[in-house]
């Protein structure tokens, strides 16, 4: 069953990368156009969420009815219900970064294969993740 999980991970990556490329979400100009509601707003990328959410939900529904994943691995539990300052502050900081360059983690990593000039973003993102982790572990 390990083989199934490994192959599926590769397939999921291929589908995800293809989806980002076909929708042009890999292009920061396109993303910034979607976020620019007070200027030259380009709402077309809304179609990504509009299609991705119901398709994902359908699979979640089937998986939950089965109660166990196809590989036998247990299904990840219900989402946390905690809404705290960390969630809101983190989301706010993420949004500022997203709006600054038009890149969120998926497209940024995918762009490594399309245009290597994205590298400073990806390196800084990893540093940021590590920094936030240290901050969280520090005694208060």
């Amino acid at each position, binding site marked *: 069953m390990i083989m199934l999980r490994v192959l599926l991970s590769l*397939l999921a990556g291929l*589908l995800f990368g293809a989806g980002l490329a076909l929708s042009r979400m890999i292009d920061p100009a396109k993303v910034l156009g979607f976020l620019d509601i007070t200027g030259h707003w380009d709402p077309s990328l809304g179609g990504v969420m509009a299609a991705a959410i119901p398709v994902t939900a359908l699979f979640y529904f089937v998986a939950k009815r089965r109660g166990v994943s196809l590989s036998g691995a247990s299904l990840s539990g219900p989402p946390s219900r905690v809404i705290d300052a960390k969630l809101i502050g983190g989301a706010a900081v993420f949004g500022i970064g997203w709006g600054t360059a038009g890149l969120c983690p998926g497209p940024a990593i995918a762009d490594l294969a399309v245009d290597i000039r994205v590298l400073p973003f990806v390196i800084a993102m990893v540093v940021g993740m590590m920094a936030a982790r240290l901050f969280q572990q520090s005694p208060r």
Partner: protein
Amino acid sequence: MLRDILFALIGGGLIGLAAGLFFLVNGRILGISGLAQSLFVRWIPQTAEALLFFAGLLIGAAWFADSTRTLSLASAPRLAVAGLLVGIGVRLANGCTSGHAVCGLARGATRSLVATLVFMATAMMTVALLTLL
């Protein structure tokens, strides 16, 4: 515009297929920032899954990217600042666009709805402010 919407829907459908299959087969939520953490930051057994997912992501993007169009990327310093903010933010919020705005909303998580509304709002405000400068 109609063509753009059509491609956004197709792309979104593929992303949904990826996230859905990942949960149905592996039992895990497909969050790019979470997977990136299991790759770079945390050394956990699911690292192999993350490694293969990212290999697929790079191949898929390179394969389907429109080679006639170049990406419009910001300057290196601006990219670095943005990347740092994104890294800190997604770690604190425990998710990004994929984990919260796609997977979280697909399973009806209130937490993800709050996160999505917040990051959409601050991203839109940032774009509006930076255009003024």
